[in-house]
C-alpha cells in the first residue's frame, strides 16, 4: 500500500518537444515537404524584405508623395478656383477636430478596448503630421497648430463623456449625426442668407471665411471618407429593410425587393454611377442644382444596400425558427419579434460579412472618378498624367495610396474582430 501512495516523479516532455526547438519541429519542419516549403518561403521572405527595403530606402523617390502632400487629403478644396485666398483649409481641419472629439467620447462609452486604441492612433497620427518637414510657406503655423489641436480635442471629448451626462451611447449617436451634418455644412460653406417673407426680412451675413466651396472641388481622402461614412450609415438600415422585405410573405413587397436587390447586384457600380450622371439630371427639372457628390452618395448607398440585404438575409436564415416561435408564444407582436429577437441575433451572426461589405463600400468609393469626382486615387492618377517628369515615381504614388487604403480597411476588420470577441459570436 505504501508504494501506491507514492506519486511518480513527473517526467518532462523530451527536449525536442518543448521550447523553440519543439515549436520549430512542429510548425516549420513537421514533415519533409513542410520543411521544403518552409525553406522556400523563408527564402522568398528574405529576398522580398531585402529587395523591398533596398527599393524603399534607396531607389524609391518619395518626394512625389510630399509634393502632392495635402492634395491627397483634401484634393482641390483649397485651390484658387475652389477657394480664392486659399484660406479654406481650416474647415476640413475643424471637421477632423470634431471627429476626434467624437472618438474621445466613444472611448468612454465603449469602455476602452479597441475604440481606445483607434482613438489614440487617430489623434496621434493627426498630431504627428503637424511636424512634417515642410517649409513654413507650404505648411503654415496655423495648419500645424490645428493638427496639434487634435490631442486636446480628444481629451475634451473624453472629459465630456466622462464627467457630464453626455456620456451615453444615445448622446454619442446624436453627436455623431450632428458631426456629420456639421462637417457637410462646414465644407460646403454658405453665402449670405437672405430671406424675405412679407414683412419679415432677414439677412444673415456670412463671414468671408465660410464662402461656399462647390462640391465639385471636394476631393482626396476626405471625399472617400465622406462617401463611405454616408454610405455605411444609410445602407445598413436600407439593407435590413430590403432583407425583411425579401423574406416577407406579402408577395408584392417580396417581388419589389427581389427586383431591386437583383438589379443592383447584377450590374457593376461603375455602370450605375455613369448612368446616374445621364439619367438623374433628366429626372429633375433643368434648373435643379446638379450635384455629382449627392448622386454618387445615393448610388453607392443603393448599390451597397442590395449586398447588405443579402448578408442580413443570410443571418436571418441562420436563426433557428424556434427563436421566433418562442417570441410569438410569449406574446410579442410580429414587429416586436423581428425587432427585438430575430434582427439582433441575425446581425450579430453576420458581423464579419457586414464589415466586409463596409470595407468593399469604402474601396468602391474610388470608382467615383467615372463621374468626374477627384478622390485620392484620381489625385494620384491625374498628377502622374499631368506631370510626365514624375512618371518614374508612379509606383511610389500608388504604393502610398494602397497603404492609406489598407490602413483604413485593416482597421475596420480589426475593429470587427474585436467586436465579435466582445459579443461572443460563435460561443453561444
Amino acid at each position, binding site marked *: 500500500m505504501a508504494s501506491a501512495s507514492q506519486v511518480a516523479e513527473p517526467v518532462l516532455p523530451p527536449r525536442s518537444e518543448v521550447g523553440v526547438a519543439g515549436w520549430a519541429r512542429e510548425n516549420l519542419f513537421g514533415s519533409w515537404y513542410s520543411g521544403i516549403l518552409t525553406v522556400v518561403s523563408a527564402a522568398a521572405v528574405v529576398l522580398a524584405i531585402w529587395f523591398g527595403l533596398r527599393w524603399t530606402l534607396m531607389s524609391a523617390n518619395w518626394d512625389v508623395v510630399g509634393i502632392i502632400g495635402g492634395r491627397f487629403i483634401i484634393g482641390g478644396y483649397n485651390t484658387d478656383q475652389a477657394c480664392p485666398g486659399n484660406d479654406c483649409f481650416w474647415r476640413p481641419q475643424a471637421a477632423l477636430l470634431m471627429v476626434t472629439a467624437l472618438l474621445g467620447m466613444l472611448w468612454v462609452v465603449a469602455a476602452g478596448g479597441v475604440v481606445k486604441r483607434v482613438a489614440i492612433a487617430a489623434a496621434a497620427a493627426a498630431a504627428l503630421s503637424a511636424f512634417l518637414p515642410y517649409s513654413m510657406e507650404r505648411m503654415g503655423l496655423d495648419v500645424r497648430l490645428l493638427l496639434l489641436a487634435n490631442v486636446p480635442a480628444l481629451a475634451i471629448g473624453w472629459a465630456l463623456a466622462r464627467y457630464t451626462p453626455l456620456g451615453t451611447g444615445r448622446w454619442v449617436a446624436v453627436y455623431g449625426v450632428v458631426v456629420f451634418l456639421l462637417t457637410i455644412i462646414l465644407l460646403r460653406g454658405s453665402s449670405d442668407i437672405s430671406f424675405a417673407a412679407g414683412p419679415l426680412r432677414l439677412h444673415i451675413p456670412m463671414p468671408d471665411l465660410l464662402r461656399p466651396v462647390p462640391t465639385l472641388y471636394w476631393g482626396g481622402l476626405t471625399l472617400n471618407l465622406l462617401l463611405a461614412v454616408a454610405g455605411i450609415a444609410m445602407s445598413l438600415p436600407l439593407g435590413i429593410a430590403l432583407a425583411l422585405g425579401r423574406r416577407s410573405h406579402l408577395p408584392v413587397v417580396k417581388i419589389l425587393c427581389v427586383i431591386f436587390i437583383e438589379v443592383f447586384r447584377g450590374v457593376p457600380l461603375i455602370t450605375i454611377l455613369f448612368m446616374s450622371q445621364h439619367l438623374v439630371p433628366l*429626372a429633375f427639372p433643368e434648373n435643379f442644382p446638379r450635384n455629382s457628390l449627392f448622386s454618387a452618395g445615393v448610388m453607392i448607398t443603393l448599390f451597397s444596400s442590395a449586398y447588405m440585404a443579402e448578408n442580413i438575409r443570410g443571418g436571418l436564415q441562420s436563426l433557428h425558427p424556434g427563436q421566433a416561435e418562442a417570441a410569438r408564444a410569449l406574446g410579442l407582436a410580429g414587429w416586436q419579434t423581428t425587432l427585438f429577437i430575430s434582427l439582433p441575433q441575425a446581425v450579430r451572426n453576420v458581423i464579419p460579412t457586414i464589415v466586409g461589405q463596409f470595407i468593399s463600400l469604402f474601396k468602391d468609393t474610388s470608382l467615383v472618378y467615372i463621374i468626374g469626382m477627384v478622390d485620392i486615387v484620381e489625385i494620384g492618377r491625374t498628377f502622374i498624367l499631368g506631370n510626365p517628369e514624375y512618371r518614374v515615381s508612379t509606383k511610389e504614388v500608388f504604393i502610398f495610396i494602397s497603404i492609406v487604403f489598407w490602413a483604413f480597411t485593416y482597421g475596420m476588420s480589426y475593429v470587427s474582430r474585436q467586436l465579435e470577441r466582445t459579443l461572443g459570436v460563435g460561443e453561444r
Partner: protein
Amino acid sequence: MADIPKALTYRGIPVWRHAVIIQWALQIVSAIIAVSLVAWFFFNIAGSIQERDIPYGFSFLSREYQTPIGEHFLPYESSDSFLYALIVAAVNTIVVAVLGVGLATLLGILIGVARLSSSWILSKLMLAYIEFFRNVPLLVQLLFWFFIVLTLPPVREGYVLFSRIYVNNAGISFPGLVGGNLQAVGVWVGLAAASIALGALVHHLLSWREDRTGKASYPLLAGIAVAAAGGAAAWLVVGSFTGEAPLVISSPEPHGRFGRIAGGVTLRAGLLVLLVGLVIYTSAFIAEIVRAGIQSVGRGQIEASRALGLSGIDSLRQVTFPQALRVIIPPLISQYLNLTKNSSLGGAVGYTDLTNVAITMTQTAPAISIFMLIMLSYLVMSLTWSLIGNLYNRRMRIVGA
C-alpha cells in the same frame, strides 16, 4: 366592441386590426408607392427627352459605329454597326471573365491550401498576401500594374526573354498554338471535344464496373487514352483534308521597319493588366473561401480517413475536398460574379470592355438606350453565373438532409 359599426368590421374584427386586411393594405400601399416612384422617374425622363430634344430609341443600333475598338476577339471593322460593336465588346468582357475566373480559381485554391500549410512561415506569407490584396481597391492595383507596363520600353527596344518571349509596353508575345484555317480549327475543336466526352463516358462506365465487381479496370487511364486517341485521329483526318495541321506552333518575330511583332500569341497590354489585376485581387478572396471551406470539414472526418489508411493527399482529395466544396461553391460563384462585374474597370487600363465601349458610344448615340442594353447584358451574365451555381448546388445537396 358594440360601438363599432358593422360596416367597419370584417368577420367580426375591426378592419384596422384585421391581419389579412392590414397585410393587403400594406401591399397595395407599397405597390402604389413603388409604381408611382418609377412612373414619376420615367415620366420626368420622357418629358425631359421631349423638351430638351434628346435622341432616344434603338434605331441607332443598325447605324455604323465608325469608331475603332482597341482590342477585339471577334473580327471588327469601323464600318460595322453599333449592335455588332456591342457584341464585340461583350465578347471582350466574357473573354476576360472566363480567363480571369479560371486563373483566379487556380491561384486562389493554391493560396488557400498554402494558408493551411503546416509550415508556419508559408502560412503567414499567404496571410500577408490575402490581407494586402483584399484590402486595397482593385482600381489602385490596376493603375499600379498599368503604369508599370507603361514604363516598359517601347516595342523596338523591348525585352526578349529566352529569345522567344517579347515583353514591351504593348504587351507580351510568346510562342503558342495558332490556327491557320478557321473552319479547320473549328472542326477539330468540335471533334476533340466529342472525343473528350467519349473518354469521360468510358471513364464513367469503367469506374462503375470497378465499383460493382471490384476488378481493377483502370478507368482514368482508359478514359484519357480514348480521349487522346480520338483527338489525334481527328487531327489526322482534318489535317489530311486541308493539307496542313489545324494548329501550328508559331513563334513571335519582329517584322518591318517599326519592329512590330507578328506571329505567336500576344497578350496586349490592356488585357494583360486587367487580367493580372483581376486575378490577384480575386484570388485573395477565393483563398479565404477555400480556407474556410476546408476548415469547415470536421476534424474527425480527416482523422477517420487517416485511420482507414488513406494518405494525406488521398484524404484531402477524396474526403476533405468533396465535403469542403459544398461550403466553397456558393461564395465562389459570387466571387465569379464579382470578377465579371469588376472587369468593367477595364477602361481605366485601356481595355475595351463592355462598359468602356458603352461609355464611348454615349458620345454618338442615346445614352439611355445604350445603358439599358448594357444593364441587360450584365444581368444576363450574372444570372448565368447564378444558374451554374444553383445547378451545382442541387447536384451536391446532401441527400436526405
